[in-house]
C-alpha cells in the first residue's frame, strides 16, 4: 500500500495534512494518523503497522487494532492509497 501519485502530506503541529491535489481535497489527521501514513509509505502492511505501533505506544495490539484498521479504511474509501 502507498499513497497515490498526487497525494501529498505535510507535518503540522496537530499531526499531518493529507492533500489530494488531483481532487483538490484536504484531510487532516493527528499524530497517530501521521504515524500510520508514515509506515504505509515505507511499505508496511496493516498487520505490521499494528505490530509496530503497539511497540511504539506500548499498548496491546488488540487495543489499537480497530482504530488503525478503520483509519486505513478511511484512507482507502477516500481513494488516497493504492493497494
Amino acid at each position: 500500500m502507498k499513497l497515490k501519485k498526487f497525494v501529498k502530506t505535510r507535518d503540522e503541529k496537530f499531526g499531518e495534512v493529507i492533500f489530494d491535489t488531483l481532487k483538490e481535497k484536504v484531510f487532516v489527521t493527528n499524530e497517530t494518523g501521521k504515524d500510520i501514513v508514515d509506515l504505509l509509505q515505507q511499505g508496511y502492511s496493516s498487520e505490521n503497522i499494528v505490530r509496530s505501533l503497539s511497540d511504539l505506544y506500548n499498548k496491546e495490539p488488540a487495543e489499537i487494532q480497530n482504530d488503525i484498521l478503520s483509519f486505513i479504511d478511511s484512507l482507502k474509501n477516500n481513494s488516497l492509497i493504492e493497494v
Partner: protein
Amino acid sequence: MDKNNIININDLEAPLFIAWQINAECNLGCLHCCEEAGHSMPDKLSRDETFKVLEQIVALKIPYVAFSGGEPLLHPYIFEMCEFLRKNSIDLKIETNGEYIDEKKAERFASLNLRSVQISLDGATSVAHEKLRLGGNWNKATNACKLLKSKGVNTEIVFVPTKFNIHEIGQIIDFAYSLGVYGIYTGKIMRIGRAAQNWDILCPSDEEYKEFFTTLNEKLKQYDGKMKVYFYPYDVLEELKYRRMSPAASLLVIPNGKVKLIGPLPFVCGNLKKQTLKQVWENYKISWQKPQVQEFIDRLIKEPKLLAESNKWVELFH
C-alpha cells in the same frame, strides 16, 4: 480523519496552495478576463526574485502550485520554473489558453509529470469561443488538448459560461469526452476585471443558469466514472461570504510579487519582493478579520458593482 472545510488556517505553518499569476502579458483580449490581461505589469519579479520565491515554496513544503497569467506560456522561463518545482516533488497545474502548445511543448509538459494542464475552451464550436476570446483560435485550443492527451499529459478543460456560450454546456461536455481529457470544470462567471466592465452583455440570466445547472447535473451522471465533470455552483459573492468565515489555505501571487487575499477582493497582504513567503502567510492569517476587509465584503454584498475594483490593489499592511 477529518475532511476539508474544517481546516483552520491558523493551525497551518504554511499555505497548502499557491495560485501564481506569473505574468500579465497575453495574446488574447477575452471580454470576460478577470485579470484584465494583455499588458506588461511594471515592476515584475526579476528572475532572481522569482527563484527565491520558488525556493521558499519548496522549503515551506507547499504541496501544490498553479501557474496562470496572463498567458503563462508567454513567460520567458516558465519551463525552468516548472522544472524547479517538479524536481522538488511539488504538484503543479498550468492554466493556459493553449494557443502556444505544439508537439514539442506537449512533450516537455509530459516529461514534467504535471498534475495537469488546464485549457480554456469557451465553446463547443469556434463561434462562441472566438466571440468571447478576442483573437483566440478554437482550433488551436482543441489541438492543444489533443496533443497533450496524445503525450499522456493529464488534461482538463475549463469553460466559463456567458450569454454567448452557456447553451453549449451539454455539447462541450460531450466534446470534452470525445477528446479523452481527464475532466471538464465550470462555474458561474466572476464579475471582476473585464467581465465587470462587460457585465451587461456577458452575464447569463437566472433562467439560463437554471438550465445550465440542470444539464450539468445530467452530464455528471452520464459521465460518472468515465470523465470528471465538476462545477462550483456559487457565485463570487456567495464565495466571499463563505471565505470570510473560512479562508482558503492559499495565497494568490501576482506578477509583481504582491500577494492578494483572493481574486475578487482588492486587498494585498504582502509583497514577496520585500517579505518572505512565511511572513506573508502570517499576514494573510490575520487579514481576513481586519475590519477594513469585513466592511468591504459587507459593502460588496449590497453593491456588487464594487467587484469591478478587484484589480485596484489596497495594501493592508504598511
